[in-house]
């Protein structure tokens, strides 16, 4: 089972991102789960979303998890959330930031011995330049596709188009650009 934890602010689209990822993964025949810890959260409040991916039907419903991937889609949350909570020796981190990887890690002692498992990408800038709004969820999916190696980019883009099919063509196109740019730019 692959387990993913998203760190986000309410309104940045982590739930939509987690559900979108679930939609795409389900088309490969795998079983998925996408859920969030929110409730009466307010826009802008720190929140978490989660994915589980497995070959078998997923019947665990505990919120507790040991994540394989931690996706941080708000640049400030690395300083306020405990992003390494319950991590493993193999947990990979994809963090949205305008800083270089070295600059970021120099400010985060908890990541210093995990350097080879930390990846950075500026989802905020990418979404501003492609979608026109600070919606960092779709770029993060592009970065995840690259880092996880779970899909070919073209396959993912094709499936994501179907997930977004209810939206106008312009929005679909800009999301595809955002995913592709993050795929290419994540380091």
């Amino acid at each position: 089972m692959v387990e993913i934890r998203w760190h986000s602010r309410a309104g940045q689209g982590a739930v939509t991102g987690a559900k979108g990822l679930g939609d795409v993964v389900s088309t490969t025949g795998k079983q998925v789960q996408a859920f969030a810890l929110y409730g009466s959260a307010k826009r802008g409040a720190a929140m978490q979303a989660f994915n589980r991916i497995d070959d078998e039907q997923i019947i665990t419903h505990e919120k507790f998890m040991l994540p394989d991937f931690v996706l941080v889609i708000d640049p400030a949350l690395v300083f306020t959330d405990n992003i390494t909570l319950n991590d493993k020796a193999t947990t990979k981190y994809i963090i949205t930031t305008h800083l270089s990887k070295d600059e970021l890690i120099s400010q985060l002692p908890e990541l210093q011995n995990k350097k080879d498992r930390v990846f950075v990408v500026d989802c905020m800038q990418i979404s501003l330049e492609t979608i026109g709004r600070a919606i960092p969820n779709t770029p993060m999916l592009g970065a995840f596709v690259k880092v996880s190696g779970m899909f070919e980019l073209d396959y993912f883009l094709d499936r994501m188009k179907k997930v977004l099919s209810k939206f106008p063509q312009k929005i679909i196109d800009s999301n595809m650009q955002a995913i592709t740019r993050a795929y290419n730019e994540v380091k």
Partner: protein
Amino acid sequence: MALKYELQEVEVWDGNYAASHALRQAQVDVVAAYPITPSTPVVENYGQFVADGYVDGEFVMVESEHAAMSGCVGAAASGGRVATATSSQGFALMVEVLYQASGMRLPIVLNLVNRALASPLNVRGDHSDMYLGRDAGWIMLDSFNAQETYDLNLCAFRIGEHRDVRLPVMVNQDGFITSHTAQNVRPLSDEDAYKFVGVYEPIDELLDFAKPVTYGAQTEEDWHFEHKARQHKALIDSRPVIENIFVEFEKLTGRKYNRVESYMMEDAEVAIVALGSTVESARVVAKYLRDNEGIKAGIVAPRVIRPFPFDAIRTALENCKAIGAMDRSAPGGALGMLFNEVSAAVYTTSSRPIVTNYIYGLGGRDLTLEQIKDIYRELKKNADAGEITTKIQQFVGLRGPKLEFFETRRG
């Protein structure tokens, strides 16, 4: 004519969306609803379906949940297929009218998305609202995941509307854990779903002016008892109808439901009895303990909470030695409902397994697999000792000092 909705063979839906689609496919005549977390998306999505032309029926926005259920009662008495959804405080406000609906024998389908009751205010999942409704004379079904929420909604119309039943039906799902967790769901096509649910056949509808009838009549000590006794009999007698509809559903989908679900019980020494998503988490743990610690663990879960499956619970549990009844509701100065009802059932067997009570997960508190492991290990100790080695009622996952009550006087 309602538009057909194109569905994939596998959709990724949460429990609320699954419920909305089932209501849409059943082509409900009237949904009267007042939204409340976490059930809001059930009627929000349904309202979208109505607005987009996927439903021919009426969506009635009302000023409260009391009015929502009153609207449902009126529409059902008038001869329509009727459904709604609610949670928690909204359900509490409906309670008065729930008894009216069942007393008038109106087959309304209510999606109850389980949530804690205030005070303190809490929007998250526990079974307080489900327990509040258990004497209201409704058939109560319980789903453990989004697929089951979808399936049981389709079955609920069939069960409630059956000529030999004619009772309202609640479909329970766990707030957030099921209602807001997206998982793989295999829906039926619109045609197949509607064919299964069938065309609604009203009985004694108020709008049939050729045959005037009265709903909500007054009966004092002369007839009230007989009415209530018949209602109880209808509930108890609905058991074979429910079973037959589950068999029909299995023929259509391959998915089999039972009044009581049993997992790994063939040779189980210890069993957890639970409701909702906990049933599935416990299956993960039981398998782990069988593979790694040699504990013969199993799970028994009422799929049908009302009519309480006194008979089937007894059959499922009589061969195990120790049972943990897990209640996700504040017991309010008593042992938990599952403990009381399961104990009563197994007391009438000759084996009389040991039963203990675990209170957990109130207000959405996470129940971890590790905690479930510890419960099974305690049950194993009880089974080996042949007596209760802990207090009878224990709280699991509570902050602060351990809270536990009552010692056994048996053995």
